[in-house]
């Protein structure tokens, strides 16, 4: 019994321990991730560790040209430890030596060689004109084949088969022959015959070359059954028609009239033929030239306008002084989950009754421009109980925040408190109320609050506010007057990392999402909106107008009255079989016999001599059959018209009558 009691106690103990573990897990799951305790004191060491372990090239080899945001960080670049490359780039930009940078200072070449700038402008203008010319050429290259095809189809229209001929005629020779040789080869061959004194053959070849050239150009449509005169009459171009007419006249004089092909005649025909063929020969050459120009143009333009390859090397992570890589890295080292935002700010879901567990969103207005719809939604989103970190110039902040943009007049040093200033008692400030960091900024952007300074967490020495924690509905906005403390170069400077961590600690971040440049735009409500936002609105408008023009042109063409297409004819045998199948399916032999009788009567009466009216006698005479049999057959056939019910012999009568009628009619052929 004692053993059993010990075993039970042991089992109960295991169950209790397991239950306790499950309870801890459940509580943890319900409570969500624990708030990360940001520690400003280790922020600087975090930055140094990050820069030591990872490749942050913004200091040594920053991306060129420096972006406007990076240039705004330049004033203090020399004070960043180990950032000689960034400082040099800033110096170069200030001196205008950075050709790729957006510098307002004249370049060295412009100072020394003023004409070089003019030349560059001229090349730029030429390149722009070339671009438009190439666009026009491309349009023509697309349009010309379409027009030629339309023209050719119009020329082909009279030659098209109407249908019944298909079943009764052999295919034409043009359909079975292979493609003829080119006009250049024909001209060359003709020249050889002309030189050999065979003028008649040379003339024929000149004519063939001319016809081939005109056919290729769409001025005529070559076909076996067309005469030379028809080619001349149908030639679309007046000049070509005149030349072709002269060629045809001389060729036919020699071919059919047996006139001599004198050298003068051959030379005249050769001249006309070459004129006709040369016009055609330039077309493919022009097309090739245009294609080549289109292919070379981008290279030429690149060489003319952006010749320095150093300006266009591929971007690398961490090489932008205004980048956010260090911001990500420091927060992650402080156990904050930081990820880029994956949706538009305008589609963030507002908090319901339980705002806990939602990520804090960081919006850098220097890189994320907010449209009105997104601003409105973002404010509503914060009011619902979310936390937002808004960094950037206060002038572009949403109006709902009610701040007034200003700037510091004293210095660029900022004092960041561990807590909001109104939470700190004046007599006995605790440790968190003491100035925890005093970053030095490159910019002096600041703002003022309309009421008291409740919520201020960072300010300049003259009292202008740099950062404040603002209440907005159920949520909060940590408003920072610049994004400098979020950037790589900003954080890399001494004390700035700690200031950033202190600022971020105001919103107790656990899960942070950082908005990207394209997240400030609300999702398009329609395809048209998305295309417009992508900059394709004008192109789309042009395409719509062009489509409308083409549609109207086609509609106008289709609206013209034209002869109706001839009805598709069925072969008579097929027709008879089809009708017979219908009768068979309906078991209506009497109707079939009646219909055939009417048909036979019409055919027979047309062949009967004048004055005759007895069809049976006519049948007997023609077929040499007994008149009694013919009469009986005909009487039975006629009786089928009004018969109330089929007798059963209709098909047999029909077959016999058909044989008699065929024999009678055959004698007429």
């Amino acid at each position, binding site marked *: 019994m004692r053993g059993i009691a010990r075993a039970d106690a042991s089992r109960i103990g295991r169950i209790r321990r397991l239950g306790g573990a499950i309870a801890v897990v459940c509580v943890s799951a319900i409570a969500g991730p624990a708030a990360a305790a940001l520690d400003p004191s280790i922020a600087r060491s975090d930055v140094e560790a990050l820069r030591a372990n990872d490749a942050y090239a913004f200091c040594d080899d920053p991306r060129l040209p420096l972006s406007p945001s990076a240039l705004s960080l330049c004033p203090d670049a020399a004070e960043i430890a180990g950032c000689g490359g960034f400082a040099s780039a800033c110096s170069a930009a200030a001196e205008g030596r950075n050709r790729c940078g957006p510098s307002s200072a004249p370049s060295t070449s412009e100072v020394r060689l003023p004409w070089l700038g003019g030349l560059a402008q001229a090349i730029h203008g030429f390149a722009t004109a070339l671009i438009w010319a190439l666009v026009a050429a491309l349009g023509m290259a697309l349009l010309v084949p379409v027009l030629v095809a339309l023209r050719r189809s119009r020329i082909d229209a009279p*030659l098209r*088969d*109407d249908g*019944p*001929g298909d079943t*009764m*005629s*052999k295919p*034409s*020779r043009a359909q079975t022959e292979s493609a003829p040789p080119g006009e250049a080869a024909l001209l060359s061959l003709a020249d050889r015959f002309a030189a050999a004194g065979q003028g*008649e*053959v040379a003339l*024929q070849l000149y*004519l*063939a070359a001319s016809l081939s050239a005109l056919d290729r150009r769409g001025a005529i449509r070559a*076909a*076996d*059954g*067309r*005469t*030379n*005169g*028809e080619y001349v009459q149908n030639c679309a171009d007046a000049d070509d028609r005149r030349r072709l007419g002269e060629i045809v006249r001389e060729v*036919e*004089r020699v*071919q*059919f*009239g*047996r006139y001599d092909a004198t050298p003068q005649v051959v030379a005249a025909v050769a001249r006309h033929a070459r004129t006709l063929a040369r016009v055609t020969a330039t077309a493919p050459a022009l097309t090739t030239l245009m294609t080549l120009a289109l292919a070379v143009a981008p290279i030429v333009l690149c060489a003319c306008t952006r010749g320095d390859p150093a300006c266009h090397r591929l971007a690398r992570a961490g090489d932008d002084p205004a980048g956010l890589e260090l911001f990500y890295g420091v927060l992650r080292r402080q156990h904050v989950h930081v990820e880029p935002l994956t949706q538009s700010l305008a589609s963030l879901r507002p908090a319901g009754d339980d705002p806990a567990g939602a990520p804090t969103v960081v919006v850098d207005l220097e890189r994320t421009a907010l449209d009105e719809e997104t601003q409105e939604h973002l404010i509503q989103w914060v009011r619902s109980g979310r936390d937002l970190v808004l960094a950037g110039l206060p002038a572009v902040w949403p109006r709902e925040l009610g701040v007034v943009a200003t700037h510091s007049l004293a210095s660029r040093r900022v004092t960041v408190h561990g807590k909001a200033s109104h939470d700190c008692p004046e007599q006995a400030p605790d440790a968190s109320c003491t100035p925890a960091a005093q970053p030095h900024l490159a910019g002096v952007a600041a703002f003022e609050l309309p009421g008291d300074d409740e919520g201020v967490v960072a300010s300049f020495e003259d009292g202008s506010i740099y950062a404040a924690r603002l209440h907005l509905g159920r949520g909060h906005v940590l408003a920072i007057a610049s994004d400098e403390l979020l950037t790589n170069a900003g954080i890399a400077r001494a004390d700035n990392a700690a200031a950033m961590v202190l600022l971020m600690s105001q919103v107790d971040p656990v899960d942070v999402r950082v908005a990207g440049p394209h997240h400030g735009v609300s999702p398009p409500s329609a395809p048209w909106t998305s295309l417009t936002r992508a900059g394709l609105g004008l192109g789309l408008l042009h395409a719509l107008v062009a489509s409308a023009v083409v549609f109207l042109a086609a509609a106008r063409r289709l609206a013209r009255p034209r002869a109706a297409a001839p009805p598709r*004819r*069925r*072969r*008579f*045998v097929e027709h008879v079989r089809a009708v017979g199948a219908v009768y068979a399916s309906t078991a209506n032999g009497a109707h079939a016999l009646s219909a055939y009788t009417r048909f036979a009567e019409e055919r027979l009466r047309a062949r009967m001599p*004048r004055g005759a009216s007895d069809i049976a006698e006519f049948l007997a005479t023609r077929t040499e059959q007994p008149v009694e049999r013919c009469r009986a057959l005909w009487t039975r056939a006629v009786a089928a018209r009004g018969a109330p019910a089929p007798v059963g012999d209709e098909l047999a009568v029909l077959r016999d009558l058909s044989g008699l009628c065929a024999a009678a*009619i055959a004698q007429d*052929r």
Partner: protein
Amino acid sequence: MESATFEQTFARIKEQMGRVVVGQQPLVEGVLVAALSKGHALIEGAPGLGKTLVARAFAVVSGFAFKRIQFTPDLMPSDITGSNVYDRQRGTFTFVPGPIFAELVLADEINRAPAKTQSALLEAMQDRQVTIDGASRSLPAPFVVLATQNPVESQGTYPLPEAQLDRFLFKLTVDEPPLEVERTIVRHHAEGFDPTDLGALQQVTSPRTLLDMQHFAQAVRIDDAVIDYIVQLVRRTRDDKAVELGPSPRACIALLKAAQVIAASQGRSFVTPDDVKPMVRSVLRHRMMLHPDALLQGITADERIDEILRVVPVPRLAA
């Protein structure tokens, strides 16, 4: 006769006839070509389209002696050819010539006379003579028969037999005039034009000149390649499945003669395929007997001719 004279006379006849025959240039040219080819023409068209007017105008312009025969069911052969009549005073039979003895004979509504009467024209059209009571009598030269028929009315008509049709060089169809042409015709009448009075027309030639033109056209050169083209065209009609009976070699000859006249009318001394092609329809359409199946399908001879013209290669390269 010179080539230029032929060309000018041809153009002047067309121009004169065009003064009274509005919008029917193909018909005018067809009649003229038929006359110069020593042939005859069957003109088919609805009433009121100017068929008779063309014949009368041609007679005036060419100076031909013109006779019109209105074909009716009771018309007898002797009413056309003439007959021997007993002369009491002399006690002998005297030949009284019929209307066939004219240079231009208009057989109006030829399909209204029975076959016996129609056949009275056979010898006249082919051999240019008539035989009466065993005596052959030559017809004047030139001798041209223009026959008309109405394609719509079939009651009381006698379709021309194939042998009779074959005697006609051309079968010319007259279509309804386009709107503008019809308007011009009406305007002419409003301005006082009288179709029965053709005094405004000038005689621009004579039967003698036309005979010379016939001889000149016969001398126009025709190359073997063009002859082959003509033969191929005609033979292809015989191979066509839609055609039960194709044209005879007489059609080739008719095509050849017509092409020669066309070439001469354009001032050329040789025939080209361009001279042949426009004449094919007129020469072949009445010589092709379509298969009953094709007739039931509504296929016409002109459609088959167009198809044949499309597929038969035109002689182009020298041999």
